[in-house]
């Protein structure tokens, strides 16, 4: 069964004379218990979609339902079933960790002690700071507190808007471990991120750009569907290598990729200059995103 259905949802913002199309007719289904990633840069429409699905914003057109509840009509019932962690820290900075948890629990007519087992794994890390004001916590701890507050009423569906943005690689890894544990408890998780490498940590992902969905697939499916020949070329000198590749016939695109330059090449007849080694490589999610953007889907 689908936990989330989205049909032709559009939303535009007007500010003065400028009109921004945040979402342009998005349709998407997300399965129950799935860990689903919305992957795209700033301005792609990720936050707008989250705010519509959590009933905080009305779509201009189209329909969406979460657990069978319409996001516009059934918003009261829907809100008791979902947890939402916005991209910006939005807890009460002058309340302590404990007070924030008690407050969010009381809003949902529940009690922190009663539900503590739900967030046990995360809370053990927070507990030493339970009498700290939320505003004085480190970034990583704030993130964990926000996650606890979003889970306090045992939601069926959890929305996490860029939980790992600006977070270092170690904390990011730990956070994804936590999500794995929550998924095992049967919670549907929708998470957005601008880090393409996090796509591989989701069951399925939607690549989103300028209010449109470029592709929905499993990370593996995305890579398999790449459909071009990709080669990795190594220095010396990134700029020199890029400039050199511009002049090679059969190379349709070249861009830096870690320690290599990735070159999209025609199957046959590429003439590499003397002394330049190139090896075939499997595309990464980021290669897929770049290719979809260049195809003009963006």
């Amino acid at each position: 069964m689908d936990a989330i259905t989205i049909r032709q949802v559009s939303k535009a913002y007007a500010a003065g004379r400028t009109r921004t199309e945040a979402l342009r007719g998005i349709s998407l289904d997300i399965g129950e218990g799935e860990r689903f990633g919305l992957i795209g840069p700033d301005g792609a429409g990720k936050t707008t979609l989250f705010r519509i699905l959590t009933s905080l914003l009305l779509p201009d057109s189209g329909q969406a339902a979460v657990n069978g509840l319409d996001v516009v009509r059934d918003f009261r019932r829907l809100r008791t079933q979902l947890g939402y962690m916005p991209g910006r820290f939005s807890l009460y900075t002058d309340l302590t960790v404990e007070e924030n948890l008690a407050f969010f629990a009381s809003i949902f007519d529940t009690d922190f002690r009663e539900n503590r087992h739900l967030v046990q794994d995360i809370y053990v890390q927070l507990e030493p700071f339970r009498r700290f004001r939320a505003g004085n916590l480190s970034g990583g701890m704030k993130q964990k507190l926000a996650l606890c507050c979003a889970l306090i009423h045992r939601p069926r569906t959890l929305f996490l808007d860029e939980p790992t943005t600006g977070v270092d690689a170690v904390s990011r890894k730990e956070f994804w471990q936590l999500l794995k544990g929550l998924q095992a408890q049967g919670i549907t998780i929708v998470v957005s991120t601008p880090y393409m490498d996090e796509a591989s940590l989701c069951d399925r992902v939607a690549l989103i750009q300028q209010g449109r969905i470029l592709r929905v697939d499993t990370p593996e499916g995305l890579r398999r569907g790449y459909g071009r020949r990709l080669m990795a070329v190594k220095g010396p000198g990134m700029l020199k290598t890029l400039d050199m590749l511009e002049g090679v016939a059969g190379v349709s695109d070249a861009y830096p990729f870690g320690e290599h330059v990735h070159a999209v090449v025609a199957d046959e007849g590429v003439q590499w200059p003397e002394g330049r080694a190139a090896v075939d490589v499997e595309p990464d999610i980021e290669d897929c995103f770049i290719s979809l953007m260049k195809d003009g889907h963006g």
Partner: protein
Amino acid sequence: MDDAVILAEGLTRRFGDFTAVDGISLSVARGEIYGFLGANGAGKTTAMRMFCGLLKPRAGKARVAGYDVWTRTEDIKRSIGYMSQRFSLYDDLSVVENIRFYAGIYGLGRREVRERGDRMLEELGLTAERKALVRSLPPGWKQRLAFSVAIIHEPGIVFLDEPTGGVDPLTRRGFWKMIYRAADRGITVFVTTHYMDEAEYCDRVSIMVDGRIEALDTPAGLKQAHGADSINEVFLRLARQARRTE
């Protein structure tokens, strides 16, 4: 090293009894792209603020663009460029107003502002948008404009504090091409990032853990020394040893 644009020896900064930066030493050469990595709370921002002349050290020595960070902070500020993801351009000023504003701060004359501004707009392909409010520009354009503005006075060194957060992969790469071109012209680039693939684009990289520099080498050298396939792996290994959180 005579041509070092940044030279630090035992640079230290404490806040009360907390040592944010604990005796770091490094030297960055002219035209080098230097990646300054570390987990949140490792002390990167504090170190960067000292290099920019915004914060006095408590111990140690450092020179930036030839000026002492203890005594010549105003000279340092005039000789560097700075750009961060959080603060760069004024959203409610137009493109050309932002250029004039920053050029003015750096003391460029009226004619210079016009000439460099026009050339910059042309290079960025923003000539038609010169009067548009920065707010209305796509994030990628904003970022490229912010970088160009940060080096409008042709500084010897530019500090980039997580400059590429949240942009699409094409824009991110376009941005790195601008960095390469700047370095090619002799501008030293000192950059922090959470994207580990970008660490691979740097000439040399250091990784800070608990206020100290735990590793400093070329990306290839770091990977070899740690028997790792990627900088990400090296980073995870070193940063996991951290005792303190932010």
